[in-house]
């Protein structure tokens, strides 16, 4: 089985979010970047397929040279090859087109992307990629088994879950549940050394135009401080929720 895992390079959850250039660009100053958590669950599931069922695992990222440490980390975790499409990931449509081009050339059976990236939270790339490839697609995927050319996936739905059978090639928008947090791997020294020798191919974008562009960013108003209510006076809390917040 040939697996492609799509990787976003995103600011760590604990990062301070600031903007520069008149609030038009994300300020990367002092920010540490990580593998997008939803992608990391998928990458770890891909490692499971590789070890238990036999598979080759490629990772792909659309980004500038600054994303290479994140890509190398994927190789250190155990991916075999990496591809970087050398372009600014300007919008979901653009990224999906570039990923589709890589996917078509590679002839993959299974393409794993994260349900959404934790930076722009678009949640659009996996579905667009599947549609561009005319492949089967399961979003918010929390479990995936593959037997030959057929897959059984479980998808989270509002208030429950749904089990789906699909034939390969398949694209999933994955999330926690594909593996658990405790299954995630910290690269060891051997993995890190080996990753240095693994191929990281840089290719130029196909040149599709974007359909949208961010024009500016803003931050929510700073929140007022919490109103504390005594545990002996819960009527006050109910009064505040009714009269002031107007939510009950």
């Amino acid at each position, binding site marked *: 089985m040939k697996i492609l895992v799509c990787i976003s390079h995103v*600011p760590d*959850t604990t990062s301070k*979010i600031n903007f520069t250039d008149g609030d038009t660009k994300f300020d990367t100053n002092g920010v540490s970047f990580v593998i997008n*958590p939803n992608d990391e*669950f998928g990458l770890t599931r891909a490692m499971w397929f590789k070890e238990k069922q036999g598979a080759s695992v490629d990772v792909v990222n659309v980004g500038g040279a600054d994303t290479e440490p994140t890509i190398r980390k994927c190789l250190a975790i155990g991916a075999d090859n990496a591809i970087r499409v050398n372009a600014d990931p300007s919008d979901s*449509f653009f990224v*999906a087109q570039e990923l589709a081009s890589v996917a078509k050339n590679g002839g993959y059976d299974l393409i794993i992307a994260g349900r959404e990236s*934790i*930076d*722009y*939270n*678009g*949640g*659009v790339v996996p*579905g667009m990629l*599947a*549609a561009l490839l005319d492949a089967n*697609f*399961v*979003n*918010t995927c929390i479990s995936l088994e593959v037997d030959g050319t057929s897959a*059984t996936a479980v998808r*989270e*739905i*509002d*208030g*429950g*879950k*749904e*089990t789906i059978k*699909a*034939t390969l090639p398949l694209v999933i928008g994955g999330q*926690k*549940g594909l593996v*658990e*947090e405790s299954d995630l791997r910290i690269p060891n020294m051997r993995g890190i050394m080996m990753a240095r020798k693994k191929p990281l191919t840089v290719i130029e974008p196909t040149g599709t135009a*974007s*359909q*949208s*562009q*961010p*024009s*500016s*960013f803003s*931050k*929510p108003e700073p929140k007022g401080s*919490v*109103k*504390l*209510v*005594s*545990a002996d006076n*819960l009527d006050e*809390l*109910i009064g*505040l*929720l009714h009269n002031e*917040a107007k*939510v*009950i």
Partner: protein
Amino acid sequence: MSVLIYAESENGSLRKGAFEVASYAKGVADALGTTVTAVTINVSDVSVLGTYGVSKVLQVSNDSLEKFQAKSYSSIIAEAAKAEDSKVIILSSSTNSKYVAPLLGVALNAAVASNVVSLPKSTSPFVVERTAFTNKAFQDTQLNSEVKIICVSSNAYGIKEAEGSAAAEAFSPTIDSGSLEVVSIDKATDKVSIADAEVVVSGGRGLKGPENWHLIEDLADVLGAATACSKPVSDMGWRPHSEHVGQTGKPVATNLYIAVGISGAIQHLAGINASKVKVVVNTDPEAPFFKAADYGVVGDAFEVVPQLIEKLKEFKSAN
């Protein structure tokens, strides 16, 4: 040229999110000087949509659509968009709508903006405001494609009633059913889902064990709320993963979020930040949640929650 919405339903009834999407679409249609058309799938009574600004309903009825399939739903909405010559299509932010939106985007060569929180800031160029960085920022995005798809963030715009009525007509598109097979659906039907809820009551490690979850459930019952939990609680198996809210769990954007015995790790707060009013009950006054909450009670959940349930019952019967 009408603004098209997909009015989501479940078991033949429109979901609450459909009314918010209709209300939002009415606002967009007014700005563009046009009307709102809705597509419904297997809903027999659609007249209520008129109350939220929909003028026309394309009613699809087909037994093969009983189970949701993203591909077939996308093909129906795409054909409706072409029939109506719609340039703006609006969906909710439910799990299913977010599943359909990118497929529809490719079918119509349209830009997709998800998590949109307010009416377009301008319609030429077309600029919408959406949340980014897991609710830590807002992003103005300019959509340059001819057709635009917007997923409205839940509870961000609200439901607004409008004058008028909706004319329904049968619509029979060609359905591309795809090749996925839904084998089974496992869903609690007697509970409010987190996505549909206006109030969510959520429990953390402070509850000390799954045997104490009746406190969360009873409080949720009084408020007509959905129940949720923090990540450690789902990791320890006290509650199913589907109830886990936070960055790697479900996002929550409700009017009222009540956190009981949750300290407020940054990943948890990222997932619930979009909720309008946050209440925390925790024994530890230093818990980070108190910095994120609007109202706080420093106290033991086992004392505070039962009292709160009693007092809310009194309040509900008096109001």
